[in-house]
């Protein structure tokens, strides 16, 4: 009984719950516009499209919850796709080695972001803004301005194909399976010691340090995880649609919005990975709804802006309603 009530409160009340409410509302809207959306194949297609953003949201979640930002993920996704195309250059046999190179590159970018933020004490907004510029420029410098080369069929498989001929559903996209694996991984990781220390570090850096936590190390790991998730997202996006000069552009803002929509607090220490990923799903569903409604394309940003503000305001109200000023701390633990 209380369990049910607590679940209800969690879903409809507190900051995290808002996203599930929003998700239900959007899906209801889509259902009203087009019941066929919930048939297997189109639902699968939706999930396939949503997978990269959900994966990025998982990565961004780690960074945000530990008290930082990662604005470089969009540029990193773009860079990864361009690197893949240029290095693979249509040769099937190069797929695997290039995937390893991309993995190394993604982890390295995350590591550099993390070290600059933690060791050099540069606020992560600036670190990753700088990284965004560096990646954007460097990758174009390397390819002379526009992507060259092409992707192999094997490279494109995870993003584009799936398990075919499944009854009722048609195709189960590999992207969906990868998304589920990453999602489960993220949720499980937050249940480990690492996850708990990460949360504590985002909440009160000093207390975590004095408890022996390697705050810098876990925060750096969060950036590395974000780099990893951007790499996976890059593989899926590149696989899904191939190379184009604009891949990844603006994704950083979409994904941060998604995570915040999921009730994760910018500044760290609060929010769950599941809700962050649900936020990403909600954003994708919102885009689908706009499409179903045939909302004039130029008006969509306006509606999107209103919904995001409303949802986050609603969540903030839910959080702050009981007990106005939460006891404050004079902690030096601060998001950077």
């Amino acid at each position, binding site marked *: 009984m209380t369990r049910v009530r607590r679940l209800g409160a969690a879903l409809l009340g507190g900051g995290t719950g808002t996203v599930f409410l929003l998700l239900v509302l959007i899906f209801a809207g889509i259902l009203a516009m087009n019941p066929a959306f919930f048939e297997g194949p189109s639902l699968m297609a939706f999930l396939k499209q949503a997978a990269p953003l959900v994966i990025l949201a998982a990565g961004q979640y780690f960074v945000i919850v530990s008290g930082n930002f990662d604005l470089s993920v969009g540029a990193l996704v773009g860079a990864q796709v361009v690197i893949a195309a240029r290095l693979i250059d249509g040769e099937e046999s190069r797929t695997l080695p290039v995937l390893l190179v991309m993995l190394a590159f993604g982890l390295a970018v995350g590591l550099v972001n993390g070290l600059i933020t933690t060791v050099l004490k540069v606020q992560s907004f600036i670190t990753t803004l700088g990284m965004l510029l560096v990646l954007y420029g460097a990758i174009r410098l390397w390819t002379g301005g526009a992507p060259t080369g092409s992707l192999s069929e094997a490279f494109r498989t995870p993003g584009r194909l799936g398990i075919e001929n499944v009854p009722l559903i048609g195709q189960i996209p590999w992207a969906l399976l990868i998304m589920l694996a990453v999602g489960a991984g993220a949720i499980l990781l937050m249940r480990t*010691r690492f996850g*708990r*220390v990460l*949360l*504590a570090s985002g*909440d*009160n850096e*000093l*207390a*975590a*340090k*004095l*408890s*022996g*936590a*390697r705050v810098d190390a876990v925060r750096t790991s969060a950036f590395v995880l974000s780099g990893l998730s951007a790499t996976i997202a890059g593989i899926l996006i590149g696989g899904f649609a191939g190379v184009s000069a604009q891949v990844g552009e603006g994704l950083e803002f979409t994904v941060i919005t998604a995570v915040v929509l999921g009730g994760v607090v910018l500044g760290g*220490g*609060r929010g769950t990975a599941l809700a962050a990923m649900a936020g990403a799903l909600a954003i994708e569903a919102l885009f689908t709804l706009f499409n179903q409604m045939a909302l004039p394309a130029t008006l969509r940003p306006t509606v999107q802006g209103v919904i995001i503000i409303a949802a986050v305001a609603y969540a903030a109200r839910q959080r702050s309603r*009981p*007990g*106005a*000023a*939460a*006891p*404050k*701390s*004079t*902690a*030096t633990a601060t998001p950077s």
Partner: protein
Amino acid sequence: MTTQPALSMRGIDKAFLGVPVLSSVDLTVEPGEVHVLVGENGAGKSTLMKILAGVHSADAGTIELGGRAVSFTHPAQAQNAGVASVFQEFNLLPELTVAENVHLGREPRRRGRIDRRAMNDATATGLADLGVDDLSPTAKVGSLSVAHQQITEIAKALSQGADLICMDEPTAALADAEVALLYRLIERLRERGVAVLYVSHRLREIFDLCDRITILKDGRLVESVATTAITPDQLVTKMVGRRIEAQFPPQSPDTAIAEVRLRIDGGGNDYVDGIDLEVRAGEIVGLAGLQGSGRTEIAEAVFGITPFTRGTIAIDGRDVRISRPRKAIAAGIALVTEDRKAQGLALRQSVKANARLVLDANARVHSRQRPTRIRGILSSLDLVARGDDQEVQFLSGGNQQKVVVAKWLAAEPGVIVLDEPTRGIDVGAKHKMYSVIRSLAAEGLAVLLIASELIEVIGLADRIVVLHDGRIAGELPGGATEQEVMAYATGRRSS
């Protein structure tokens, strides 16, 4: 002569998250009266004060100031109505100067511009009035000692020329000398007819200072009596609802002071120097000294926060180099820090998450101890919480302190340093903390205890090491007199 009461609160209700914190509380304070509000941690004292200060608004009830009904939705309104407050948590901006903090929100202006000179002058005068001469109005608050920060807070409240001044545990961070200053000041306020509403856990203070006592328990009014009409024992019984026996629990018979567990030889750094110290298994060593004498610095050095740059530390006879907290933890040292909110707890995490933080953060410690025992530790400390999923920010101070202690006990340390473990916690919780400290010693831990209330050090410690100006001024046996300790602490005597 029928004067209106300075303050009259009637039927105040307040609930947080649907949990009632105050239920129809009445409070009347007369002009020129020093009125103390007492009660256990979480009784609702601070909440009542914050309602009066306009920080929270009451769910029900009326407030009258000098006979005029008021209702505040913002602290500014309370200030304008003549209510000044010193809150329990520090309410200062470290980046601003003393003068800027004192006048925050009420900066004096000349021709539309902030008049910094007037601000500094007024602050200097205010501080002189307080009898404080070693605090510059232009000093940055972030660089001050805790005591000076508290003095700044008090100066801030006094500078408002209020008719009613509320102070929530103003002496928690003050040493005796400053406490005396404050007493004198309150005396003067009383003479001027200013009403003072005071919150304190220190019994002596209550009886020395106050005219009237209002006792809260679980958010309800127990009684409001004149100080002269009640004895300390009766007061404690009314607050806690049961009798608290002797002030300090006796040493348990099987406590054996054994081998040296912590040994410092010639320890020193930028803040302290020439520290020679030994703590044995089963022994409680008290560190006494005035504010700024370097007690916390020794704790921080032992724990690797600001390590010693000279001298050596040995744990259980083995020399260790402690360059950061992780190393200290690995060596079996625990530190209960003096500021539990800033340094001890991740406030938005659950009780459980906080209690297992040390285990989570330290792999080697982890293997020594199963997290499942944490529940046992928490219940042995009599933690009162709505469950171990409750966020610690919603616990009362005493219970928060228990969570901090629990997190360290989980790591099974050999040496535990307790820096002001009873700061701001109530009589019952203090008593519990005393027994915990005793039982830690009985279990064979070496305990280094720092407490500003001399009586605690004297009552609990087997030996007292007194600091003066960053150096050890002398050593006394447990049970020494306050005069003996103060002689060393003030530098009047040195060994």
